[in-house]
């Protein structure tokens, strides 16, 4: 039942007074039903300029070939695969929030899942364009599919992790899209029923004729639960397989069995950082402070801390195994991360991902919006350097010293990368304009059990343990969206 009261010592997930069901709809749909504000236009202009740069640089690559990138015979993978792994990793947080946290019944996911899932889809689009363009002949991109052909048929090799990757990424993208869109249907219907004219027509088509009848909701919940159940192993498999692109090779620095868990943890780590980067701005610009509260921010920071520490342990393990293996190439590669010509990239990786993240142990840092946002940027940068270090440092000096080389990016490399960020933000900004950025129906579920006003009512009734009530009031002091004067005695 919706009226189930939860323990008073849990922080509220929806803050503010007089939040009714209608107000939830109103608040969340405000950016969709009104003209965008100035901040949106500025952001959109900058982002779409970036997207134009991306279109130009990718077209340039398609036209002239990947010789336009800074790759050479020794370093055959560089910014392209770095960007690919970085974007795929960012995507992972969305699925973690929508699937794994659903299975664990973490209700705080309800207000962040929608935008995090959208972020997943846009990040995977960015990632996919890297693999397609790095194929060199993108018009032959269908070759990794098991299609009958005129070479024999010479089939694709299912023993190859690169083929697994094609299957993993395409499945991941399509299942994420399906999960996201199915979840959007009730909210699209909410927009439809409030709109008029052409908008109603468009949202009517997009909402598939949703009515919210008992049977629809019942099946909808079954679908969401099972989709979460299959998405959970799926998301773990995706980055596992990405890591196998490296781990199944014989390259020093790549050939390690720790890669799958290490990559998955790193992916969730970087993904949550990107969610934080986006949501801290979104909540401010769209005025959603009551729905994305300090509790959400702190919870995400805690996940960043945990996954960052897992990544830290993985780094240490790598070093230990390099030493313990006795393999001189392996040992050199790891030493080279600090004393080689790319020492600065190694320092960025270890500094940003391990040292900086440990600051999250301090509550003051976890609950400061400004610091959290900066930390999220630091993690984004650090995780980009992690992939750069793994890929380029391992490749640039491996077995034969005569073939050692350096990698220097060209303007095309840089433009594709900067442009992909522009593309990502363009898609995200368009998303928050035309679709509800918070799952309306799911937030409504929290209103009677976990909102600040429902807890206020419980406090007013006075059947609460005084110590617990005190604890609850204390926990509210770090919220920026709570009127504290209401709690003074």
């Amino acid at each position: 039942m919706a009226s189930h009261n939860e323990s008073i010592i849990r922080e509220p997930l929806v803050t503010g007074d007089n939040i009714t069901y209608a107000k939830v709809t109103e608040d969340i749909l405000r950016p969709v039903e009104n003209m965008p504000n100035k901040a949106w236009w500025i952001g959109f202009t900058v982002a779409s300029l970036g997207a134009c740069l991306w279109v130009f640089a990718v077209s340039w690559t398609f036209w002239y070939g990947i010789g336009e990138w800074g790759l050479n015979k020794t370093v055959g993978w560089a910014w392209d695969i770095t960007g690919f792994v970085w974007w795929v990793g960012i995507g992972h947080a969305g699925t973690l929030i929508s699937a794994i946290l659903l299975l664990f019944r973490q209700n705080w996911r309800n207000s962040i899942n929608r935008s995090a899932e959208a972020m997943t889809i846009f990040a995977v689009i960015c990632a996919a364009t890297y693999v397609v363009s790095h194929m060199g002949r993108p018009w032959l991109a269908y070759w990794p599919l098991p299609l009958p052909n005129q070479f024999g048929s010479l089939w694709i090799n299912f023993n190859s992790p690169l083929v697994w990757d094609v299957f993993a990424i395409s499945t991941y993208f399509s299942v994420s899209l399906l999960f996201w869109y199915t979840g959007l249907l009730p909210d699209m219907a909410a927009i439809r029923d409030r709109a008029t004219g052409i908008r109603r027509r468009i949202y009517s088509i997009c909402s598939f004729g949703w009515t919210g009848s008992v049977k629809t909701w019942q099946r909808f919940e079954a679908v969401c639960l099972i989709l979460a159940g299959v998405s959970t192993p799926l998301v773990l498999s995706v980055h596992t397989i990405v890591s196998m692109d490296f781990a199944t090779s014989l390259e020093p620095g790549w050939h390690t069995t720790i890669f799958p868990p290490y990559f998955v943890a790193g992916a969730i780590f970087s993904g949550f950082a990107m969610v934080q980067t986006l949501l801290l701005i979104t909540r401010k610009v769209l005025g959603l402070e009551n729905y994305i509260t300090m509790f959400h921010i702190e919870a995400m920071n805690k996940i960043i801390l945990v996954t960052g520490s897992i990544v830290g342990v993985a780094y240490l393990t790598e070093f230990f195994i390099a030493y313990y293996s006795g393999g001189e190439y392996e040992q050199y590669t790891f030493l080279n991360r600090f004393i080689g010509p790319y020492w600065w990239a190694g320092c960025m990786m270890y500094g940003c991902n391990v040292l900086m993240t440990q600051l999250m142990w301090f509550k003051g840092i976890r609950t400061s919006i400004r610091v959290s946002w900066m930390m999220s940027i630091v993690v984004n940068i650090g995780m980009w350097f992690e992939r750069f270090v793994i890929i380029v440092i391992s490749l640039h000096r491996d077995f034969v010293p005569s073939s050692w080389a350096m990698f220097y990016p060209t303007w095309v490399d840089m433009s594709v990368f900067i442009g992909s960020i522009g593309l990502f933000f363009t898609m995200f900004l368009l998303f928050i304009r035309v679709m509800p950025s918070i799952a309306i129906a799911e937030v409504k579920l929290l209103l009677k059990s976990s909102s600040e006003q429902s807890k206020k009512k419980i406090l007013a009734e006075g059947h609460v343990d005084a110590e617990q009530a005190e604890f609850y009031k204390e926990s509210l002091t770090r919220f920026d969206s709570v009127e504290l004067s209401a709690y003074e005695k």
Partner: protein
Amino acid sequence: MSKTKFILGLFDDPDVMMHGIDALQKNSVPIYDVYTPMPIHGIDDKLGIKGSRLGYAAFMFGILGGTTIFSIIYYTLVHDWPMNIGGKPAFTVPNFIPATFEWTVLFTAFGMTITFFFANHLFPGRAPRVMDLRATDDRFVIAIDAKGNVSHDEITNILKEAGAVEVKHNDRKYVSYE
């Protein structure tokens, strides 16, 4: 003869609406359907709606997906064109697991969701059969088929007493058709 086709009881609170369902059932008024802006657990039990069988569909689609890709892999790499990779066997099952897993998930997800859309008649362009426009916003709507339930006033009274904020007598089944 009254032109009313459907009687709608509009509630502003899910728990009050549940009492409304109880009250109607106590008076043996059959309920046509209930429309809510969010999933409310327990209505399906009260209305005697059986649990969803989509889980079985999902399982079958998963089996289908796994078998399909495994058969493709077996045919291509073992039967049609086995490759000699260092003299190792062509039928390398562990290497076939990733692709098999991915298609199992892919078929499960799409098969189940398409079954759901099919069963509930959801598809792009479907005319929304909405009885009250606020049912996706802040109203919890109990719909009662007016035909056969002669005493409309009595139903109205039951709903009002149960706490309905508004009771509507709709002449049309769906308000959303233009």
